[in-house]
């Protein structure tokens, strides 16, 4: 299969930022972050399968302040990518594509992802 070089656009330097453009870029960025982040899950499960000592080591790293910051970012990235994916499902039915509607959905994506992530951490980590 031949894949030819695709045209790239100078969108970051040239065009005025719009919320739909920002959400499109964030969808790709969070997808890549989730791609890398899955290795963290695999490492945790692998340590648990291996033994108590490796699990302690992984728990120590993930429980440190730096680990918690990374896991917080990873959780937001997962939630944001999920919201963005659901938005694509809506679009696949040719709905919410008109001007105004698509901007509203883009704002809803970012607001929902931040609110859901903060709710998860508040309910299950900070308060629990």
């Amino acid at each position, binding site marked *: 299969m031949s894949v*030819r070089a695709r045209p790239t656009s100078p969108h970051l330097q040239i065009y005025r930022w719009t919320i739909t453009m920002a959400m499109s870029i964030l969808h790709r960025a969070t997808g890549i972050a989730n791609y890398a982040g899955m290795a963290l899950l695999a490492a945790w499960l692998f340590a648990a399968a291996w033994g108590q000592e490796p699990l302690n080591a992984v728990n120590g790293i993930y429980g440190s302040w730096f680990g918690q910051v990374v896991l917080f970012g990873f959780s937001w990235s997962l939630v944001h990518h999920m919201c963005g994916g659901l938005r694509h499902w809506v679009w696949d039915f040719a709905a919410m594509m008109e001007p105004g509607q698509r901007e509203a959905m883009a704002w809803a994506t970012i607001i929902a992802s931040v609110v859901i992530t903060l709710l*998860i951490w508040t309910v299950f980590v900070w308060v629990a």
Partner: protein
Amino acid sequence: MRETIITRDMVANPKTHYGDAKASTRHFVTQRVTGLVNVVFLGFLLFIVVRLAGQDRADMVAVIGNPIVGIIFSVLIAVVAVHMRNGMRDTLEDYFSGRMYRLVMLLNTLFCLIVGFVAIGSVLKIVFWG
């Protein structure tokens, strides 16, 4: 494998059928379906992480070792790995072409296979051997 030279006329002419219609549609549908299944995966992940974060091995074996939890989780991880490879392919197609594309796509496949097999292997080890 020799690269076909794709001219501007070939791309513009609808009769050349530039691109693989079946593979592209399958890619699109796979990504949407696995994406929807991943919503269930996230629910599972939330349950497992909230229940087990920072816990000892015995607790993890007690929860993940339950075959219903462990086997469903394994299947969901496999679906995630397919979604990861498919999604990264979209990105790679945008920025690489020709031999370089094939190389990065190979690395992509390897990464998804390794992450998938390590995670699924670990879960099944916990399910079947504790």
